[in-house]
């Protein structure tokens, strides 16, 4: 038991690090200038784009999930699995793909031109929101699908049996489920969108649509105004904390990535409704898949253009990703084990860990920088910083999966293990490990993929000497070598997905 309490130490270390970061930022914060007109505009935009992004992601995600739940078609399981893909997709790659579809020179503009409609413009608020929906609607869809899967089949039959249709069916069957699943899902989306960086930086179109996260970056990296950076970081963290605490009380989201095999339960459906659902699925799949296909097509052409020396960059990126995966595993397994042992307090303690979501990677990096700046150049430690910050960013997700794995293991086999006198290593190997391994594979894969695509910390403290794949891609895009950038994008996506799949498969083997 003592050992188990001690296992929580890394958790305290993480919380202390986060608290320390916030403290350092608060101490540096200099709000004496107050918020300028532009700062208020930034704050307003940050909040309303996150609200709209969460709202639209919710609408699209729920619509998608509902259609997917009700419709049987070949490839359905595959489609549900790849709904997890955008979450692993490096933002910068997605931006490239979205531009290829929605940009002024993109497919949609080209398609509209013959009908006399001018090219559409993706830069600005709507571009940021479209990108966020692209990223987060699949996440919502997956979370909600799990909710649908939890509705007992009898209830669907009951609804058919009682003739509940349309609104009443939604009201009695689906709404009660959505009410428990949706707040948590939307909260995650909202927090991810509040702290958006790469998307706002590339698609925001300048001061018109800039977020606090970007403003923090600019204050540090462009203006060297650390007081202002601290001030903005404090505002952002406070904002996220208030909202996180408020919404987390409503419902807890469940694990995000696991594939689910579902079968529609009702057998007799109106042909028209089924066709409508299929059309809807096709449309939404097109929305989600087309940027990826664009990246793929352009990327294959660009592979020939890959700059020499990219292998070194790739190796560096892979080592970064693996380091993050290892670090998050080393942190999450003992913390989750300790948390699961807290029983009644587990939820509260896990909530505390979720709070790290409210501290954006950027804020964390900025705080770390302030702590070490007197001792070492932040640019010299850019790579360890990427590892640490991304591991911490993946930690809440890892804990969510691992804590429930430990709790499950104890619930299912705990009594049996006790009666057999299993303890120590044997307990771990026989009882915990089979439950923990899949969750661990998933979390490590997530951390690896997220670090691989990181453009936050590396944009803050990276340089050509510490080049990673996303950074190389940004540089190539910057040097209008779009072909080569597309090649790197393809390489980056392939490596991210491959690493994730590798870890995940290891977990499930």
């Amino acid at each position, binding site marked *: 038991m003592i050992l188990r309490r001690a296992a929580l130490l890394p958790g305290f270390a993480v919380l202390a690090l986060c608290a320390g970061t916030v403290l350092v930022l608060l101490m540096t914060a200099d709000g004496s200038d107050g918020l300028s007109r532009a700062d208020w505009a930034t704050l307003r935009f940050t909040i309303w784009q996150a609200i709209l992004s969460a709202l639209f992601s919710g609408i699209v995600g729920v619509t998608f999930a509902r259609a997917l739940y009700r419709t049987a078609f070949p490839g359905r399981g595959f489609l549900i699995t790849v709904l997890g893909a955008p979450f692993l997709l490096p933002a910068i790659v997605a931006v490239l793909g979205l531009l290829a579809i929605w940009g002024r020179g993109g497919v949609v503009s080209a398609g509209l031109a013959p009908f006399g409609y001018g090219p559409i413009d993706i830069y600005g608020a709507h571009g940021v929101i479209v990108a966020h929906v692209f990223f987060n609607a699949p996440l919502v869809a997956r979370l909600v699908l799990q909710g649908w899967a939890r509705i*007992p089949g*009898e*209830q669907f*039959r*009951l609804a*058919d*049996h*009682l*003739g*509940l*249709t349309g609104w*009443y069916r939604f009201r*009695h*069957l689906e709404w*009660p489920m959505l009410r428990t699943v949706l707040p948590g899902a939307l909260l995650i989306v909202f927090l991810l969108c509040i702290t958006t960086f790469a998307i706002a930086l590339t698609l925001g179109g300048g001061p018109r649509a800039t977020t606090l996260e970007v403003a923090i970056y600019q204050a540090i990296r462009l203006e060297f105004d650390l007081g202002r950076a601290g001030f903005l970081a404090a505002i952002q963290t406070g904002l996220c904390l208030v909202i996180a605490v408020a919404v987390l009380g409503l419902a807890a989201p469940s694990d995000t990535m696991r594939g689910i095999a579902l079968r529609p*339960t*009702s*057998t*007799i459906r109106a042909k028209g409704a089924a066709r409508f659902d299929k059309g809807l699925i096709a449309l939404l799949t097109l929305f989600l898949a087309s940027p990826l296909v664009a990246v793929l097509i352009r990327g294959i052409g660009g592979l020939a253009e890959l700059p020499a020396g990219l292998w070194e960059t790739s190796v560096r990126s892979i080592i970064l990703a693996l380091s993050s995966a290892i670090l998050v595993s080393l942190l999450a397994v003992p913390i989750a084990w300790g948390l699961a042992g807290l029983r009644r307090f587990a939820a509260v303690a896990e909530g505390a860990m979720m709070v790290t979501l409210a501290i954006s990677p950027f804020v964390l990096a900025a705080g770390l920088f302030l702590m070490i700046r007197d001792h070492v150049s932040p640019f010299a430690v850019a790579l360890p910083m990427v590892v640490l910050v991304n591991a911490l960013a993946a930690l809440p997700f890892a804990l969510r999966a691992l804590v429930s794995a430990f709790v499950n293991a104890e619930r299912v086999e705990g009594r049996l293990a006790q009666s057999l006198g299993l303890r120590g290593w044997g307990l771990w190997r026989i009882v915990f490990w089979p439950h923990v391994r899949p969750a661990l594979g998933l979390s490590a894969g997530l951390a690896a993929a997220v670090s691989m695509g990181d453009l936050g910390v590396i944009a803050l403290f990276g340089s050509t000497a510490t080049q990673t794949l996303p950074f190389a891609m940004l540089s190539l895009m910057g040097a209008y070598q779009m072909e080569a950038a597309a090649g790197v994008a393809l390489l980056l996506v392939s490596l991210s997905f491959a690493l994730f799949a590798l870890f995940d498969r290891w977990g499930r083997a």
Partner: protein
Amino acid sequence: MIAFNSAKLANGGFTLNADLSVLGGTCTAVIGASGAGKSTLLMALAGFVPVARGSIHVAEKRIDDLPPADRPVSILFQDHNLFGHLTVRDNVALGLRPNLSLSTKDRERVDEALAQVDLHDLADRRPAALSGGQQQRVALARTLLRDRPVLLLDEPFAALGPGLRLEMLALVARLTEERALTTLMVTHNPEDAARICPQAIVVTNGHAVPPQPTQTLLADPPEDLARYLGRTTPQ
């Protein structure tokens, strides 16, 4: 009353053949081993398992092409018969008005149905605050309001204690008689079948055997059924 005409019921990879008819106004048991297809028979009647070949008639009217809600049947599942977010009264009222907009008269009928199953004082509770037996009684009250000639019971009392189960069986028997229902009851328990169902259908080897008197069936079971009942014929 109920007729399966050379019907082939396809439930996923599993098929069940049924060519039989069931007497109206009385209770018929459906017995057989686990996985034999007892539920499939009921689900096909209720519209949740498609009929691949043949047809199903109720009161001379073909029903297998009707949507579940339009069929002349009420069904009770083993579990999850109630919506957790609705009160007992609303759950029962769904049998009358899916949109829950009730007239005064409707309200009276709901209370009446609840009184029939002895639950009128629990009308404002949610299902989670009821025992398993009470929950099934609520569902039964709803079938009364739906007022369909056929009542399908898919092991709804399997999870109840013996005393409670007997009470429920008595309630079903009473309602069947009072309302002249045609009741089909899936059960694992031969005594339950014997208690309230004069006839019984045996489901075995992918076939539903036409109803036979329950007493004779249990007294001299065919080999499959005997093995299931734990009574192997002496060598």
